[in-house]
């Protein structure tokens, strides 16, 4: 039988305890600094432009609109019941059509509706439990709690963000007061290029190289961006 050296025993037990504790969901929530930070700054973003926040009955959730109304970030109130997606972007179709989009070759998962294009993802079908009335913030917090993997931090822009699948993102500044891009709608350009879009010609959108963190290393990727300053 292997005998543990005396000083090792408490350390080993401590380590195992720590690992066990980190598996505990409540503790995970407390240690989820990105989740907690993203919720706080999302709340700040919502408070910065309350007029742009509204319930979205069509999709069963809430929306945060760009100041010019050209795009919206929509998130569900009850992910078990979302008719289309749980989180999505809705934006004007015209600039993309003008830039060469073939309406018959829409990228996979993109829906055209009433002059708008919608792309997003289903996060899951767990029924969220709200303490009290559901609010835009509490619905977002359900994303953090139930589908934390969809939330992330973008170091290059000091943004939090929600992954919408396929490389599409909605991001907001960690600190609105220190950032001139308070919210950013981001699309992966490749599917659009495949659908005939000239990404450099999409009005209101900017094709840019963005540094993202992949596999522990920074990497440059192309994104179509639509940033806004809420302040």
């Amino acid at each position, binding site marked *: 039988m*292997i*005998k*543990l*050296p005396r*000083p*090792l025993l*408490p*350390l*080993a037990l*401590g*380590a*195992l305890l*720590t*690992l066990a504790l*980190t*598996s505990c969901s409540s503790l*995970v929530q407390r*240690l*989820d*600094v*990105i989740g907690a*930070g993203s919720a706080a700054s999302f709340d700040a973003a919502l408070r910065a432009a309350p007029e742009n926040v509204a319930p979205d009955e069509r999709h069963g959730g809430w929306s945060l609109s760009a100041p010019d109304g050209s795009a919206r970030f929509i998130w569900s109130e009850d992910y078990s019941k979302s008719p289309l997606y749980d989180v999505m972007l809705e934006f004007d179709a015209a600039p993309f059509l003008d830039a060469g989009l073939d309406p018959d070759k829409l990228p996979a998962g993109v829906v055209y509706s009433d002059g708008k294009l919608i792309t997003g993802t289903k996060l899951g079908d767990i029924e969220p439990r709200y303490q009290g009335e559901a609010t835009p913030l509490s619905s977002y917090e359900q994303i953090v709690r139930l589908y*934390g*993997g969809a*939330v*992330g*931090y973008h*170091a290059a822009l000091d943004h939090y963000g929600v992954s919408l699948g396929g490389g599409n993102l909605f991001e907001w500044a*960690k600190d609105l007061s220190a950032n001139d891009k308070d919210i950013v709608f981001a699309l992966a350009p490749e599917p659009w290029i495949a659908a005939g879009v000239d990404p450099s010609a999409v009005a209101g959108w900017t094709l840019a190289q963005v540094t993202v*963190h992949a*596999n*522990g*290393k920074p990497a440059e990727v192309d994104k179509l961006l639509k940033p806004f300053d809420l302040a």
Partner: protein
Amino acid sequence: MDNDTRENLTKIEPVPAAAGGGLTIPVGGMSCAACAQRVERAIRKLDGVASASVNYATEKATVIYDPSKVRAAAIKAAIEKAGYKALSNTGIGAADEDRARKQKEIRVMWTKFIISAVFSLPLLYIARAPMITFVRLPFPALLDPMRYPLIYGLAELALVLPVIGVGYKFYTVGFTALWRRAPNMDSLIAIGTTSAVVYSVYNIFQIATGGFMAVDFLYFETAGVIITLILLGKSLEAVSKGRTNEAIKKLMGLAPKTATIIVDGEEKEIPIDDVEIGDIVAVRPGGKIPVDGVVLAGHTAIDESMLTGESMPVDKTEGSKVYAATINTTGAVRFKAEKIGADTALARIIQLVEDAQGSKAPIAALADKVSGVFVPIVCAIAAAAGIAWFIGTRDLSFALTIFISVLVIACPCALGLATPTAIMVGTGKGAENGILIKGGEALETAHKVNIIVFDKTGTITEGKPSVTDVLPAAAMPADSLLRLTASAENASEHPLGQAIVLGARAKGLELLPATDFVSITGRGIEARIDGRGVLAGNRQLMDERGISLGSLAADSDRLSGEGKTPMYVAVDGALAGIVAVADVMKPSSRAAIESLHKMGVEVAMITGDNQKTADWVARQVGIDRVLAEVLPGDKSSEVRKLQAEGNKVAMVGDGINDAPALAQADIGVAIGSGTDVAMESADIVLMRSDLMDVPTALQLSKRTIRNIKQNLFWAFGYNTIGIPLAAGVLYLLGGPLLNPIFAAAAMSLSSVSVLTNALRLKRFKPSR
């Protein structure tokens, strides 16, 4: 085994650890050659200590001191004060304890390594798997560093803590040494890994307070893997060190644990330690002889190969000496215990080999000097490189990587192991072959020898007269002449007479009864056999009796010219023939000298014989240079003359008159038939009388020194290449940067490779 070799077993004396007071103390807690240097310095500081030598490989301090000025307890206290453990050591029992302690150390080391690896492998996986792009490795989402950086960091911390716990000694020893301003290898590891851990903990705080990207600057896995790899290296090192000392272990394992003594006519089994001098010991066939003694009753053959290398069992009868650890093969014997405990031949051989293994070769001096100053210099280089890179890049993380890499790669343990391990294996291998090399210095000097001077009598020759020629004068058959002469000489005590008797017996000739035996001093003998008067003696005796040599006169002159002694035999007043007696060559002499020639060694012979006789002997065996007519007292001056010609001289001899020459020579080799004085004067003791062991000793020396040079080359080369590489010199020039983990692996492998190279010596086989 011949009688001379058996005699030799009683004459092996341990190399005294000191002229005044000598002490060998096992030292615990040394982690590198720098530690050995520190212990040496601590002991040498004591008033009354003449010298101190600490061998990192054997983990023993050999101290020569004046007991009137300093006590052993004070020496041990000095070792303890320096931060190490002075362990107990007395005799073979302590050697067993030492072995048990080392076995335990190996077990603990492996346990630590296994525990460390159990935590380090997942730590390494967590740290590195997200970076692997060519294959998607399974990874828990909860530990995604980009999503849950704090959990990720804390998980790494949780995994590294047990590893640090396992390696706590690196910190206690390393920081203590640093505090005493005498940093060692543990200090390098402690500083390096602590820097990594502290910086990583700081970054966890950064993550917790919103600086999420600090997750890219966690170095817990660096610390964990470094400790694990070094524990692996230490474990392998401990195992290898144990293997280098197998020769001693084998010898110690030979000693039986119990003895059967006769008490009031009854056999009683008692522990070996309870046997006292004078006890009557009984040994049955198949049993081991427990202590040295003299046979009182019984007849048997004893296998003494474990002590002498001779494979043939040796007949033992009443009065024969028997030796501890040898095996009784055929008959039951009872013997009186004469030497017990540390005085037995086995204990003395063990002591001699242990002393040799604990000694240092001059070639080790350079390694010792470098090791002593190496660690502080490395600390300085690491700090300078780290600061320079920080100034150049403003990247603290990068600078820290450089700092840690330099500290970790520069451990000088390979340097400290290079020489002693090879000496341990070399001297151990010598002992296995019946060649006792008394120290590292002898081993080193032996490979430089370019001329070997052999004493003639007893070295090149058997040292005992024997019948060489039987020349009948008339029609008498040679065997009849020999039988008649031997029958007449049977009552003689003269060595030449005894040689003739032995010669006849060796031919199976039955001796005839002799009457009226008369010994004529200085001339010969006279006796009557079968009614005939037999006269045997020198020429003077024949002349005095008026007996003509006739046609044998010419043969007589020829025999004298060949260094032989003609014994004239007359029967009833007429010459019957000549029986010549001479000291014959050893069977191995010619082959040994040929072997030395092949090695490019000049061979000389030194003798008191006249030039003509000496030249004849030299021609028989192929000697290059003859130093004849040398008086016993002048042998050492002849050796000195050869040294003055710029030669490295080895002297091979056995007699008491060889002792000054053995001492004068650069290497004194005492062969098996030697005396106590010759043994003590010699640097190398050959247990057997086989001269082939002389070239074997030189071959072993050359192989060992070559091995040491290889080890030193790799150890020095490794650090010479490793430090600039770790300091980022190649990176500066557009090349790769050494990761601290690879630095730790390389450092551990360097020690293991040096040990493995030393262990190659175990494959040494004498070329005969």
